[in-house]
Every structure is written in C-alpha cells, then in structure tokens.
C-alpha cells in the first residue's frame, strides 16, 4: 500500500530531476566558451586576474623610500 501511494510522487520527482538535469545541460551548452588556442585561453585568464589591492601602495611606499634615500645622498654630496 505504502509503496503504491509513494509511486506517483517518485515518478514526478524523477521527472523533475530529469528536467532539471536537461536544463542544466542546456545552460552549460549555452555558457560554454571556446578558445581556439592555448594563448587565447591564457589571455582570457590574464584579463580576469587582477593584481592584489594593496600592491600599488606597497610599491609606491618602497619607491618613495628609495627616492628619499637618493635625495639624501644628493644633498650630502652637494653639501646642502
């Protein structure tokens, strides 16, 4: 009895799962991107890769420190 009463539900559930799988496959087919060569694929990856946010500040600070130490050297050299 129990088995019979669950049967329609199971069938409906299976159909829904099948439909979902079909939809997923269709979506995947639509979303797939093709790259003709390795360079194209790498180029796409490069475009979607950004340098870390804090990097510019780090480099800028180091550059300023470097420039300041050069300036100090020039000042000592020129006797200012």
């Amino acid at each position, binding site marked *: 009895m129990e088995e019979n009463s669950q049967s329609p539900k199971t069938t409906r559930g299976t159909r829904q799962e099948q439909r979902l799988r079909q939809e997923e496959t269709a979506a*995947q087919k639509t*979303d*797939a*991107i*093709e*790259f*003709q*060569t*390795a*360079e*194209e*694929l*790498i*180029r*796409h*990856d*490069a475009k*979607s*890769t*950004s*340098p*870390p946010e804090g*990097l*510019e500040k*780090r*480099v*800028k600070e*180091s*550059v*300023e420190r*470097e*420039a*300041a130490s*050069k*300036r100090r050297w*020039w*000042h000592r050299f020129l006797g200012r």
Partner: protein
Amino acid sequence: MRTGDTNQPAELGTFQSTAWDKTGFGAVYSEHVSAIYYLALRMLGNPDQAEDATHDIFLRAFRNYGEFRGESAVRTWLYRIAINHCRNLLKSWRSRTMVTESDPAFWERAATVPDTPFRILEMKELGQQIQRALDMLPEEYRLLLLLVADEKLSYEEVADLTGQTTDAVRGKLHRARKAFAAAFASTH
C-alpha cells in the same frame, strides 16, 4: 615609449611632488602591473609569492629607471626584469615538482593531441586548472605561452626575451600548444 622624462629633477629634490608621480613611474606601474603580476603568478604558481615578486620587480625597475634608454619598449624591459627575477626565485627554491622533457610518456601523448578548441564549461576554477597545466610544462614552453598570450608583444620581442630567433619561437610555440593541450586535458 618611456612615460615621463623628468626623473632627474625629482632625484635632486623637487619637494612638492612625489617621485612616483614626478618621474612618471606611477604611470608605468599602472600600465604594466597587470601583465607583470600575471607573468609572476603563472611562473611561480603562488599569489603571495607573485605579489612579493611583482613588488621587487618594480622596485628594481625604479632603481634602473634613470638608465633606461628606451631602446626597447618599457613592457619588454619590465618583462626582462620579471623573467630574470622569477627564474632566480625558481632556481633557489627547487621545491616544485614539474614534468620535464625527460618524461617520454607525457610528450608522446602531447604530440598526438589533436588541434581541437578548448571548450570551457566551468569558469570558476579555470585559473587553477591553467596553473596546473602550466606547472606540468618545461619552463621554456610555459614562458613562451605566457609571453605570446600578451598581445602587446610582437614575435620579435618574444624572440628577444627568450633569446632565440622568431622562427624558433614559431616552431616551439607549436610544440608548446600541443604540450599545454595534453597537460590541460589531464587536469580534468
């Protein structure tokens, strides 16, 4: 090609502007950082190490900026510094396992991979997949693919950076593509 030509006054002490802006180095950084960071990332395979390496590459470039004569494009000059830096790091680490030309099975398989397009369904882990594939390649192929992928570099510039003729670049590129395709397929 060089951006800004006023580094001398800044070095002598123009007090209002920072060296970053005054020398034009800030503009050089902004224009090329993405390319240099990406090369370091895929050469070294680790985001933290790539960040440190990119910092060191630009600092080294700044130190030599006054001597840059513009005989090559700024990008090529930066790439040269980056390649040397990454090679030195890799040499000193010697900790990463890579498949080399001495693995005959891998290269036999690579040579037979047909030239079919890469069909990507899942973009989320694409970067990691590309990294794994690049890690499997000999350094020469990896570098070649990374440089050729940069549309701003000509084949002549790639040849110059890798120390070979343009014909050799074209020949090796064909083999590098095959090797990458085999390596990429094995990462699925």
